[in-house]
Structures are given as C-alpha cells and as structure tokens.
C-alpha cells in the first residue's frame, strides 16, 4: 500500500494519535494500577530505560537476525519456486497442495509442533519461514501469470536471446510482485517470530522478554517491548518501500 499524505491528511493522522493517547491516559487514571494499565508517560520512561540497558541491542539484534534468516530462506525459496511454478503448470499442480496446507494451518498448530521438533533458538525461524514462504510464492506466481506474452513474442520475433528475455522481461515484470510479496511477508513474519519466541523461550529475544514481563506483571515493560516491535516492523516496511522506489522507477 502506497501512502503519501497531504498536509490535511497528516493533520488528521496527528489528531487520531493524540486521541488514542488521551484515551490511554484516561483509562490508566480510571484503573489507577500499574499492574493493569500503566500511564503513557510511565511507559515511555520504561521504554527509554529499556533501550539504555546493555542487553537491549543483543535482544533486538537476535530477534532481527531470526527474522532475516527466516525471511531470506522464505524469500529465496518463494521466488525460485514461484518462477518455476509460473513456467511449468505441472510443477504448480505438484506444489499447490503443499502451499494450501501451509497457508491454511493455524500458526499456533505449527508452533506446537515446532516446540516438539526444534530447539528454542530455531523454532521462531521455522515459524517465520513457514508463514512467509506461501506469501512470497503466491505473489511471484501471480507475477509470472501476469507477464504479457505478446512482449515475449515480440522479443522472440526480434531474435533476442533467452538469457536477455529472462533478465529484461521476466525479472522486471515480476519485481513489483516480489516486492509486494516480501512486504506482506515481512509484516506477518514479524508477528510469527515473536509468537515463536514467546512460546519457545530462547535465551535472548524480544518475545522472551515480553513473556518474562507478563509473568512478573510488568505491564509497562510488556507495552514498551510491543512498541519496539511496532517500530521495527515499520522500519522494515520503509526499507522495503525504499528498495521498491529504487527498483521500480517506471511505475510512478
């Protein structure tokens, strides 16, 4: 989703954020308990303290590393198999049951199985991988189906080599689809990886920290970590959009 806000729209966005914070503040005053809902300012203070702890970078870094590992495996497999399936209807027929099964299995079912199969460090990677792969695959496959066959025919008429047809027709045509697949996958993949960390309890990880905070009723810490996840997810979304603007210049 591409959003570029006008000045007026920005104003409304700001108003919306302010209203949410005010509601939060009012609710925290009503409950008047840090164990139920700490105030926004206390949460912000906790978040700042959290960022200043010496473990912070390690915890966040390891979660990002897990995310990237799952994401790269899912990305490479999704792109390669998506292109292959788009080219060979037989292979698509062969792989679609697998994709349907992975896509329809609830994340929690995969997690429970993975708890048995994997050590806590690899479990989030596996879950992230399984949630991201079908998204990338499906997008790339759709991209392959969308390729204008009359362009390929034109290239063949002009005796352009197969290598250049792949490089200069197929790849540019599916790039927007790859990026939108990756963008969806990153959004959903993050959540899956945090769930994996909460349930798998590896030594380091944002999910582990969230689970600990919940156990000791440190609600402010739990919310502060949640914000960290939201910001990370947003930064990755921006990164994907930036890459898109560099690669797909012709669409604007």
């Amino acid at each position, binding site marked *: 989703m591409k959003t570029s806000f006008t000045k007026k729209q920005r104003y409304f966005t700001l108003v919306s954020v302010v209203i949410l914070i005010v509601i939060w503040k009012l609710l925290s005053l009503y409950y008047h308990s840090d164990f139920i809902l700490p105030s926004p300012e206390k949460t912000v203070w906790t978040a700042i303290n959290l960022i200043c702890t010496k473990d912070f970078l390690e915890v966040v870094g390891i979660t990002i590393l897990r995310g990237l590992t799952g994401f790269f495996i899912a990305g490479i497999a999704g792109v390669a198999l998506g292109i292959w399936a788009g080219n060979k209807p037989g292979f698509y027929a062969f792989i679609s049951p697998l994709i349907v099964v992975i896509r329809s299995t609830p994340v929690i079912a995969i997690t429970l199985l993975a708890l048995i199969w994997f050590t806590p460090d690899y479990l989030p990677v596996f879950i992230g991988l399984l949630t991201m792969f079908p998204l990338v695959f499906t997008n790339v496959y759709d991209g392959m189906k969308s390729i204008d066959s*009359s362009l390929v025919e*034109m290239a063949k*008429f002009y005796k*352009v*080599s197969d290598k250049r047809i792949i490089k*200069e027709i197929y790849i*540019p045509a599916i790039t927007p689809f790859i990026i939108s697949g990756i963008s969806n996958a990153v959004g959903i993949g993050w959540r899956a990886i945090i769930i994996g960390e909460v349930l798998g309890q590896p030594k380091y990880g944002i999910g582990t920290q969230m689970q600990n905070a919940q156990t000791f009723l440190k609600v402010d810490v739990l919310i502060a970590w949640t914000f960290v996840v939201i910001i990370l997810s947003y930064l990755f979304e921006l990164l994907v959009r930036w890459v898109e603007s560099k690669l797909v210049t*012709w669409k604007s």
Partner: protein
Amino acid sequence: MTLLLQNICKSFNGKEIFKDFNIQFTEGIITCILGPSGCGKTTLLNLIGGILQPDSGQCSGFTDRKFSYIFQEPRLLPWKTVRGNIEFVLPEELASTERKEKADELIRRVNLCEFADYYPGQLSGGMKQRVSIARAFASSSDIILMDEPLNGLDFSLKQNMLKWFSQIWQADRRTVIFVTHDIDETLAIGNEVYVFSHAPVKVVSHHVIDSSSTSQLKNEIMKNL
C-alpha cells in the same frame, strides 16, 4: 534474390487457410497485402518470419534473413525508456555507446528526442507506435513485416504515422511487407499491392501502384475486395 512462397499449404484445426498458394515479393520496395480480416494475412507474415512452418510447400529467399516487426499494438517494454526499448532489439555484440548512438539516431528520425528518457506509460498512443516504428528500423533486419500497425488510430494520427513511416523508409529503402485491410493506407505508402480473397487464400489481383492514377486503382481494387 527473389522472395518466393511456392505451393504453400497450411491449415489450423482442419480449416484450410492456404492451399497451393504462391506469391512473390520484390526486394527494396513496400509490398502491401490487402484482404478481408481473418483471411490469413497474419499467418502469412508468421510463415515468412519462420514463426510458423507450412504443412507443405516452400519459402525461398527467406532463410538467413533477419526480420523486424511492427505489430498492431506497439508492444513496448513498460520498464524501459524509449531509448531502452530500441536498444533492446540491437545485437548484443554492439558496444553500449554504439547502441545508444544507433537508438538516438532513430529517435531523432521519429522526432522523439525530448522523450528519449521517457517510459512508455508517459507517452501517447501515437508516440508509442512511433517508437515501435523506430525500433523496427533500428534493428539490422533485411525485411520489415507490418501487421496492421495503424489499426485503431484516428484519421489524423494515421496520416501522421504514414508520413513518419515513408520519411524513414525513403532514407533506408528496406524490403517491407505491409499487411492491412485499408485501401487508403495501401495507396499512400505502397509500391505494389496484392489483393487476397477469403480463406483458403487466393491472390485476386496484383497491382503496381503509380501515384498518378490512384483513384482509378482504388476503384479497381474495390471491385476485387
């Protein structure tokens, strides 16, 4: 060398398009093929270009020839600029400066210099078709095959396009085989014309176009169509 199709037979799903069909093309001129739609004109271009093989018969003079095409739609790559689209059909062996030079020369000839770095999405329909004409002439082909490239363009744009085409062709004089169902296009740029019948295709008549007697020729062709 003469370009010859002899005793060509070709059918699709049991429908005979060509049966013992013969035709001859002169090199260095624009030969138009005029006929009702669906009579097999596109099939003829595909046979000439080697995209389709005849069921029997032979095409002589076409082997080892290079072709370029102007299609009904411009068929430009949306992710390449005007220059990139023209460079796309140039031989890989050419150095990048040579490719650019060659592309720019043709861009100049279709008067699109200011638009060389534009993407097709930013151009009008007529400009896109001009790029496709430039691409056909940029390619180092021996024969240009045109498949109703002016279809769907309005009258003034069509006149404009014919003007661009003749202008570039005058400087180049490559063999052109131009398929159309429009008599006026034929008379405007053709040197010779074959009039085709419905499938199975027969050559109904063959005329040399002489600019002094086009209205008389037009009547004659109308009778045969």
